[in-house]
Every structure is written in structure tokens, then in C-alpha cells.
């Protein structure tokens, strides 16, 4: 994990803590919440290399505690070229002006199971085990007055994966740090 990634994660983390700390005293009026998101993940878009563009999906179910806080869990699917990640996500939202004010801050974090797109032999052998930690802070904006709303979000996703390849009977361990800027659109119900 590079120092710049660490600084970015810390910066997003501190911001999040600050934002959540500013929350009004919690008045719980729980309602069912769900959202379905389709996203783009990209590296540097102006670089000659490291300019990958991938797609992610995420489905969340949870509760909106009041008009400013949501907690949910969900599953998703993300492609990273030859690898596919299936994250299990814990989701937190905090809004500033309520759902009609409609912008806030989100943290998705969780674990992911990594598979290879190529079932057979790859460059470093056959992927036998893949686990990952996912941290994905986002700014979010929602639009719509009713229960069903459109949302867009932009953020930064960091994935720390530990992979084990079987290379003709010998192990090849890979510690993989993936960083992506993200842009999601979705439909939310609550």
C-alpha cells in the first residue's frame, strides 16, 4: 500500500468521522432501504498506462434510520480485467440536509472474494484463493421527491487483495493494491 494511498484513505476516513460526528442527535424512524448501483471504476484517465476502465454493480438492502442516516449490507460484482471481485459490503450513509437536501457522504467497506475470469492456466498459474478488503468512500447525490430516487455518486475505491496462485504445484502469493476513482448511478428505494 503506497504512502499516497494511505494518505488518501486517512483523509477520507477523517472527513467521514467528522461528518458523522456532526450528525444531529439520532431520531430513529426506520424504513426499509435498498439501492441498485451500476458504476465505472477507472485509473488515471489521462495516462498512457494504468488507464483501466472497469464496471461494478452493487445491490444494497438495509434501513434508513431517519432522514439522514442509512445502514445497509449488500453484495456486488466488480471486474478488474482478468479478475472478478464479489464484495460483501457494509454501507453507511450520512446526509446533510435530509433526503430532500440530497447530498451526503457514504462509506462502503467489506470483504471480497476474488476469482479469475480465465478458469484454466494463467500467467502465474491457477488462482486457488483470493480474498480482499474493500474501502470505498463516496460523495453521493440523490434526486427525486418520492420513495424511489435516482442517485449518483463519486468516490475512491481501495482494494487490498491477497491472492494465492498454484504455479505447477508451487505457491505464488500476490499482495495486490488496487485503487480506482469511481462514478456510480443507481436507483434507491426508501
Amino acid at each position, binding site marked *: 500500500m*503506497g504512502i499516497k494511498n494511505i494518505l488518501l484513505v486517512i483523509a477520507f476516513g477523517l472527513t467521514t468521522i467528522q461528518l458523522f460526528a456532526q450528525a444531529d442527535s439520532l431520531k430513529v424512524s426506520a424504513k426499509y432501504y435498498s439501492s441498485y448501483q451500476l458504476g465505472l471504476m477507472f485509473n488515471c484517465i489521462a495516462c498512457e*498506462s494504468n488507464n483501466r476502465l472497469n464496471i461494478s454493480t452493487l445491490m444494497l438492502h438495509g434501513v434508513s434510520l431517519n432522514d439522514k442516516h442509512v445502514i445497509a449490507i449488500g453484495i456486488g460484482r466488480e471486474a478488474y480485467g482478468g479478475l472478478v471481485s464479489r464484495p460483501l459490503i457494509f454501507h453507511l450513509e450520512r446526509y446533510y440536509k435530509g433526503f430532500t437536501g440530497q447530498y451526503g457522504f457514504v462509506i462502503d467497506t467489506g470483504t471480497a472474494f476474488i476469482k479469475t475470469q480465465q478458469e484454466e492456466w494463467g500467467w*502465474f498459474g491457477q488462482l486457488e484463493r483470493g480474498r480482499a478488503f474493500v474501502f470505498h468512500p463516496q460523495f453521493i447525490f440523490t434526486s427525486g421527491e418520492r420513495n424511489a430516487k435516482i442517485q449518483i455518486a463519486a468516490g475512491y475505491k481501495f482494494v487490498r487483495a491477497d491472492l494465492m496462485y498454484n*504455479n505447477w*504445484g508451487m505457491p505464488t502469493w*500476490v499482495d495486490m493494491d488496487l485503487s480506482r476513482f469511481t462514478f456510480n448511478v443507481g436507483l434507491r428505494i426508501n
Partner: protein
Amino acid sequence: MKVVKFYSNEKAREIAKALGFVLSILLLSILFKSCTADKCTVTNTYMYYSPVETSLTTIRTSVIVEPAREIESAGRIYFKDDYLFINEPGEGIHIIDNRIPESPVKLNFLKIPGNYDLAIRGPFLYTDSYMDLLTFDVSDVRNIRLVNREENVLRADVFMGFTVDQARNMVITYKQEQQVEISENDCSAFLESWGGRFWGGGIIMLDFAANPQSANLNISPGGNSTGVGGSMARFTIVDKYLYMLNGSGIETAVLDNPVKPEIVHKLSVGWGLETVFPYQDKIFIGSTTGMHIISLQNPASPTHLSTYQHFFACDPVVVEGKYAYVTLRTGTNCRMANLNVLEVIDISNVLDPRLVKSYPMHNPHGLGIDDGILFLCDGDAGLKIFDAKDPLRIDKNVLARYPDINAYDVIPLNNVLMMIGKGGLYQYSYSDPNNVRQISHIRFNN
């Protein structure tokens, strides 16, 4: 006409702020491009082979008979006249008195550098020592004598596990070593979908000959004066001919003078030849890519009849009646194929062998068949015994399973099953196939 106003000015400002966030992220992706550089730390463990040189003089003067010693690892085994000959890959041959299978006795050890294969006809044992073909008189197993050495008649190349530098009078073998290498990269190798193979450094070779777990055994009915041996061994004897696999072909030696075999024919078949199984007037060769059927109508000049092809895999083969039984397995040398199966092949038309049925297995290694009873070593899943009289229902006719042993080689003969597993040499009585019972065990050091 009434204009519907969806958003207030205040809301429009909110939208503008949100879009500003998004644009900021896009801008960040440009400004902080190095923050999104993928990074992989790869800890790669690989085996490589470093050269080890030994002089030909040393090798040729090192053949001696030693007292019995512990068996470190087992390669081929061969059974002749109540004696078991167990090859220790690269080291020599252990001789075991098996006249009483309930209590086998280790007699002595025949030290032969570069030894992997053997076959016996009458009182003579034919075996390899790197590129030399040796003949031993084993008529008295307590007084074994080297009676002939044919120099430089066997193939020497990397595929066979060694090379010869004639100018320097050296044999070069390759010692397997392990290396751990840590490197960093931009993850392209893992994120981009394309195949390939990371070879690391050093020489990588498919050393089937030197792999002790690659020995797979079956009955070798080569005539009254020959014994029962392993089919994965590259040597087998039919009548007065010794057939030797050399990696890509078959060399035929005539034993008119049993002390001094004479190579009379070489047949090129294809790469990856592993096992040879004689049956009637044919030999069946298991290779990494298929099963070859070779005619011995003219035994001094074998001819290729047909090939049954399969995916890249290790595949010992045995034959009984009109069926060939082939096991394909995933293993160290056989990772290209992700399959572990027993295949039954109809060879009634030897020019057109056809798959009858395929049965999934765990990790099948050696197999043997005796009068319709199929013995299959299934790696960690142990020994499985099937009634194979109906080739379409082999999986439904399981006679016995012994999952508590790691099995990889068997010789079924006269109701005694000789089996090599990780724990050593086991012998079982299968006079009642439904009640196979262990009668003896010689432990190996591995």
C-alpha cells in the same frame, strides 16, 4: 401553458454542488494519477534445476551390491519369481524376498547411479544407468553380478533428466532446488486476460523419469520367463525383445544373446511418452497427450497403429480383453489439464480406439487389472477396487474402498495385491475381492 418547475433555485444549487463533487473526482483522477497506480507485490516460489556434474568414470565404477537399507522413495517395482525389485529413482534397486508375502524380507540394495527402470527375463535383469544399459545376473539374488554394460545406447537429453558432455567425460544431472523471489509490478500480469506460463529462472524440465510418484504399475504379461512390472517404467520385455521408451520413441533391443542386448530398431512416436504396457501382440504407450497402440507383429520392428488423444495429463494405461483403462490426473507435471478421471477405451478396433465411458476420480495414479477386477490408486482418496466386467457400470460396481491410505501404484498378481503408497509397500490378499485384507507392510522413510 403551465411550465412545470421541477426544482427550486435552491435545489438547483444543490445539484450544482453535487455535480461539482463529481467533477472534482474526475479532476482528482488526473491530478493524482499516481494515487491510482495499481501495485502488486509478488512472492513467487518456483523450482529450478541446477546442474550437477559427475564423471563417467565415477558413475561406471559405482555399481555395487550393498546390504539392505531403508527405502527413501519408490519408483518402479517389478515382481519375478517371488522376489520384489523396487527401484529407488536415480539410486538403484532394492531386492526383497517375497516368498512369504506375509513377511517380506529386505535382502540387499543394488546401487546403480542414474537408475530408473528395470525389466527381467530369465536370470537376467536389464536396467539403465543414465545412458548405459546394464545386464545383471540375478539367478542368485544374494550374489548379483554385473555381466554386461552397453555404453551410450540410451538417450541422453534434458527430457530424460540428464545430459552427457562427452568431451569432458561428464554426466550432467539436474538437482531440484527451490527459490523464493519477491518482486513488484503494476499488476498487469494478473489483471489482463491472457494465458501463459511464468518459468522463472534456471532450467525447467518435465522430468517424468525422475518423479518417484509417477510410477504406475500393472501386470506385464511378457511371457513365462519375464516378471510383472510397472507400465510407467519405460522398459518392458515381450518374448526375446526389450522395448525401451526414450521420451519420444521406442528403442527395440533383441535378447538373442541375453547377456548383451542389441538395439535393432528405433521408432519415433511423439513427445511425452511415459508408460508402456504389453498385451498380446501389441504394446500400449501412455503419453501426456494420448494412448498410442503399437503393433508387434514384427517384434523386431514395431509399427504405430493408432493414437487415442486426450488433454495434456499423466496417463498410465492397462489393458484386458477389448478394453484399455486409462487414468488421467492432475499432478505436478500434468497441470495443463484440470481433470482426474478413469477412462475406458474400446480397443476392439485397434486402428480406431474409442472412448466408452469416463468416470470422475479424485487423483488417480497407478492401476492394475486382474480377471475383471480393477485396482485403482486414487491418491489421497486411497485404493479403490471395482468389478470392471461391465465397463459402463464400473462406478456402480465398487467392491471395496480403502480411503485411509495414500496409494499410487499396484501390482495385482495371484490374489496378492502389491501396492506402493506414501506409507510404504503394502500387500493385500484379494482372494475374496469383497474382503481384501492387509497381509504385510514395509515402511518407507518418505
